[in-house]
């Protein structure tokens, strides 16, 4: 059963690695396109650099992500409680999404310094909107009948929120959290790119800048793979959390027969 599930993506991976390897051999310019084998060797050889980078990027992305989740849910909750607040805040939430983060990043660094603080803030900016938007959608689409049931029993707004609106919004909140999981890592890397030149030791983004300057293409690729895996792990964690919370009752997580 498990093997059957893993086989199709494994075949794609092998095909991809195979054609990459053959392509790299034909092209024969290792500093532009190293073979996957060389990338793997670099991964082992420069393990220390990669791990140092990974820890720093993880720290920034994770902190940014957690803050974005908490802030996003809080802002969406406030918006869902008052029509006026929603109307006045929502356009700015959209701006958060449409602002070109790469262009704003230098400004953030200017204001908050060449520090992890700036990286975290950039990560928050990029991760926040999907959480706000999905949470708000969930909080506002509570079944009308269930709202009436609570209203009939004169339940307080607070109790209605915690017993009804919030649990009903969990599928949407998880959906938003899944989108932001990868984004938070992207935000951290963007932040590190800008900071790059200004710091000695740095996260994966900083290391990528250095490795690229030194034409160490294999290391650049190894770092990119590491950053990608980090986002992937974030995603899988939230996926698992979603399964844990919903597999007993929500269509999206129930076993198909």
């Amino acid at each position, binding site marked *: 059963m498990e093997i059957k599930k893993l086989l199709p993506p494994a075949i794609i991976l092998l095909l991809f690695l195979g054609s990459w390897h053959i392509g790299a051999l034909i092209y024969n310019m290792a500093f532009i396109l190293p073979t996957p084998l060389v990338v793997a060797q670099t991964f082992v050889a420069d393990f220390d650099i990669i791990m140092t980078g990974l820890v720093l990027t993880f720290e920034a992305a994770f902190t940014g992500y957690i803050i974005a989740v908490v802030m996003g849910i809080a802002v969406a909750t406030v918006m869902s409680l008052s029509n006026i607040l929603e109307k006045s805040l929502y356009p700015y939430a959209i701006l958060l999404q449409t602002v070109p983060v790469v262009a704003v990043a230098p400004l953030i660094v200017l204001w908050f310094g060449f520090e992890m603080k700036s990286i975290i803030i950039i990560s928050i900016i990029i991760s926040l909107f999907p959480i706000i938007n999905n949470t708000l959608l969930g909080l506002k689409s509570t*079944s009308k*009948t*269930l709202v*009436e*049931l*609570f*209203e*009939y*029993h004169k*339940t307080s707004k607070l*109790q209605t929120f915690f*017993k*009804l609106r919030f*649990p*009903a919004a*969990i599928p949407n909140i998880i959906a938003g959290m899944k989108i932001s999981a990868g984004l938070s890592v992207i935000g951290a890397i963007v932040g590190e790119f800008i900071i790059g030149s200004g710091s000695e030791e740095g996260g994966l983004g900083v290391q990528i800048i250095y490795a690229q300057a030194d034409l160490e293409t294999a290391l650049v690729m190894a770092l990119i793979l590491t950053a990608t895996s980090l986002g992937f792990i974030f995603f899988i964690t939230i996926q698992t959390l979603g399964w844990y919370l*919903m597999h*007993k*009752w*929500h269509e999206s997580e*129930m076993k198909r027969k």
Partner: protein
Amino acid sequence: MIAISGVSKHFDEVQALAEVNLDIATGEFISIVGPSGCGKSTLLRIVADLVSTSGTVTKPNKGAFVFQDSALLPWLTVQNNVELLMKLEGLPNIKEKTCIALEQVGLTGFEKNYPHQLSGGMKMRLSLARSLILDPEYILLDEPLSAVDELTREVLQEELHEMWNRDKFTAVLVTHNIAEAVYLSNRVIVMSPRPGKITHIIDVPFKKRTPELRTTSKFSKLVNDISGKLRTWR
């Protein structure tokens, strides 16, 4: 007793209800029938205080509202769904009463199941159990049996009748199904299309409500009479 007097309702320009007056005796079972959009659901919601009105409604303190689609919380187990309203109302002896309520509707053994694992009939039994557990003086029912198949529907009507016989609550049922209204009620209220008002109040004379009643000619004659009154609007 539930007293409805001078109840009118406008939704913007549209008049949904015009001057409805109705007294429902304690322990009485009444049904409201009428064409779609006659405001019978709105009237029920006005009695429930879910919709505002210019008229007045007086009713006992303890009540329950049973919704069309059983209104269960999908993330709660059967057990927690039955306990929900008691918890919201802050009532005592929750565990004990839940156990009895589940037994009464034949859901013992399903405590740990989730609503999606139940059939339509079981969901409605659960919804009824959740309301009865509150020991309500009156129950408002908004087309509670419209989502189940015909066979289950008749069985549930009989169960609902037994519940009413046993617990002696006042019941107001909104339904499209005239046979259901006749089978369950002491009186059937017929409403006209928008703006909704009461056009007929029909006493149902049958003493015993058993499945055999449905096959008698008196029963079908009364059902046909009421259908005839409704047909004049079409």
